């Protein structure tokens, strides 16, 4: 009993770290331009395919066979593709709508989301179905010696560690550096940030780029953990990540991470213990989402009430 519970906790934490990594991008973009960037989930998906493409088409076998060479290269490859797509998306889809009424960018985001998914499906060889993705880390499972033993795959541990490290680094960046300060200033009052000499366009591009890089890393780690990827992975996990961002108080880095972990645990434990089993685990996440949005839209860590008109 206990070990079932603990292994579900472990599953939840792995999934939660993944969602947290994606949620960071949501929370940053929303913080800066108050846009729910629906297409962010697709950036995560594109990162996974970009990583796989790096591995399949660009890498000599010598490197590909050794994970400590391959992993960093694939991570960088995936992140790079995601950054490129995210920045292009900002430049060509969202920037022209900067002063448009609020529905326009949201609908544009839906369009970008559909287009990105389809672009991968049509143009990536074999992407019409799920594609196998190799394990890029140490094979096997670590049994945590508690009770009857709690299994967790090494790739899962990698996911948790990388997420926490990146989130921590991001928080330091935003709190401590000049660019981070400019980002916070832009999100609080864009016009006054301009008066301080901040070029908001650059900051917004930077925000999309950072969010894209994190999502790209998440995509590669997801593939490496689940060992296959498909074009639908972005939408679902994107919605979870958005839920996590709201849960943690949108615009709040630490909140997004905690929100992600909570969502991961809800899915894992809900699938185990709530009626309906794993078939309904998604439903519980959406129920959580609705409850949070209705009763505590500022999230658990939101500083101010943010009722967006």
């Amino acid at each position: 009993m206990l070990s079932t519970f603990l292994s579900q906790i472990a599953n939840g934490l792995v999934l939660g770290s993944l969602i947290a990594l994606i949620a960071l991008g949501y929370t940053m973009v929303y913080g800066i331009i108050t846009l729910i960037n629906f297409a962010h989930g697709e950036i995560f998906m594109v990162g996974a395919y970009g990583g796989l493409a790096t591995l399949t088409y660009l890498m000599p076998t010598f490197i590909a066979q050794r994970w400590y060479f391959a992993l960093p290269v694939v991570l960088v490859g995936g992140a790079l593709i995601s950054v490129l797509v995210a920045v292009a998306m900002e430049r060509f889809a969202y920037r022209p709508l900067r002063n448009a009424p609020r529905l326009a960018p949201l609908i544009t985001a839906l369009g970008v989301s559909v287009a990105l998914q389809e672009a991968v499906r049509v143009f990536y060889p074999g992407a019409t179905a799920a594609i196998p993705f190799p394990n890029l880390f140490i094979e096997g499972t670590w049994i945590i010696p508690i009770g009857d033993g709690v299994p967790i795959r090494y790739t899962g541990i990698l996911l948790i560690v990388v997420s926490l490290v990146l989130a921590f680094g991001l928080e330091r960046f935003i709190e401590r550096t000049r660019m981070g300060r400019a980002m916070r200033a832009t999100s609080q009052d864009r016009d006054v940030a301009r008066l301080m000499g901040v070029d908001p366009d650059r900051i917004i591009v930077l925000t999309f780029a950072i969010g894209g890089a994190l999502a790209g890393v998440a995509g590669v780690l997801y593939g490496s953990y689940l060992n296959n990827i498909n074009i639908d992975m972005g939408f679902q996990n994107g919605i979870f990540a958005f839920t996590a961002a709201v849960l943690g108080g949108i615009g709040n880095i630490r909140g997004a991470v905690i929100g992600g972990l909570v969502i991961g645990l809800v899915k894992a434990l809900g699938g185990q213990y709530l009626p309906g089993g794993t078939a309904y685990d998604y439903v519980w996440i959406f129920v959580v989402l609705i409850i949070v949005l209705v009763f505590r839209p500022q999230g658990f860590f939101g500083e101010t009430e943010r009722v967006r008109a």
Partner: protein
Amino acid sequence: MAFLSVRDLVVAYGAIQAVRGVSFDVEQGEIVSLIGSNGAGKTTTLRTVSGLLRPVSGEILLNGEPIQKLPAHQILSKGVAHSPEGRRLFARMSVEENLRLGAYTRKDEAGVLKDMQRVYDLFPVLGERRGNKAGLFSGGEQQMLAIGRALMSSPKLLMLDEPSMGLSPIMTQKIFDTVKELRDAGTTVLLVEQNALSALALSDKAYVIDLGRTTLSGTGRELLADPRVQEAYLGEGAST
């Protein structure tokens, strides 16, 4: 040649022209005020000079160089700082972070630290509470911080939009004294004020903006004495 010269400025929001012919000159080392009633186009003029808005027509010359097409951050690095109406501090950041943002474009760390100390000397209350969030300060203290933040870019021209808004008479006097000090220390100041009496008393030169146009100009003293100004703006101004 004037330090800042604005010629026939026209600015519109969509179809509505908020500014339809504003011209004025600011010489180095002067305090120049733009006075006029609410909605006359003063704030719009400042926002256009600092690059937040694009004019429909007209010219803005800084040392003879047209700047009306430059983005705001480039105008700032040419030495024009703008402290906006309503102060608009970064409320969730500390005093020090607000000042750091004021110096965002500067690369000389030593100079930045020196200027920060200068702001703390000018407004000791800011120095005492440099770690506190700006949103927790009183209106007068926030205005000090807003001026300090604008000074951090070590501007040649400081533009202040309604610095006395919402302040008590004592605090207003303190702010205006500071403005005078800054001018004496060599900073040129362009002041937008509804509080015409105090502004004119302080200014080397002033312009009246009415319905989006500059209608009168003269030294502060002359305008104070002008019957048209007295009737239109000082009736209320004198009582505050």
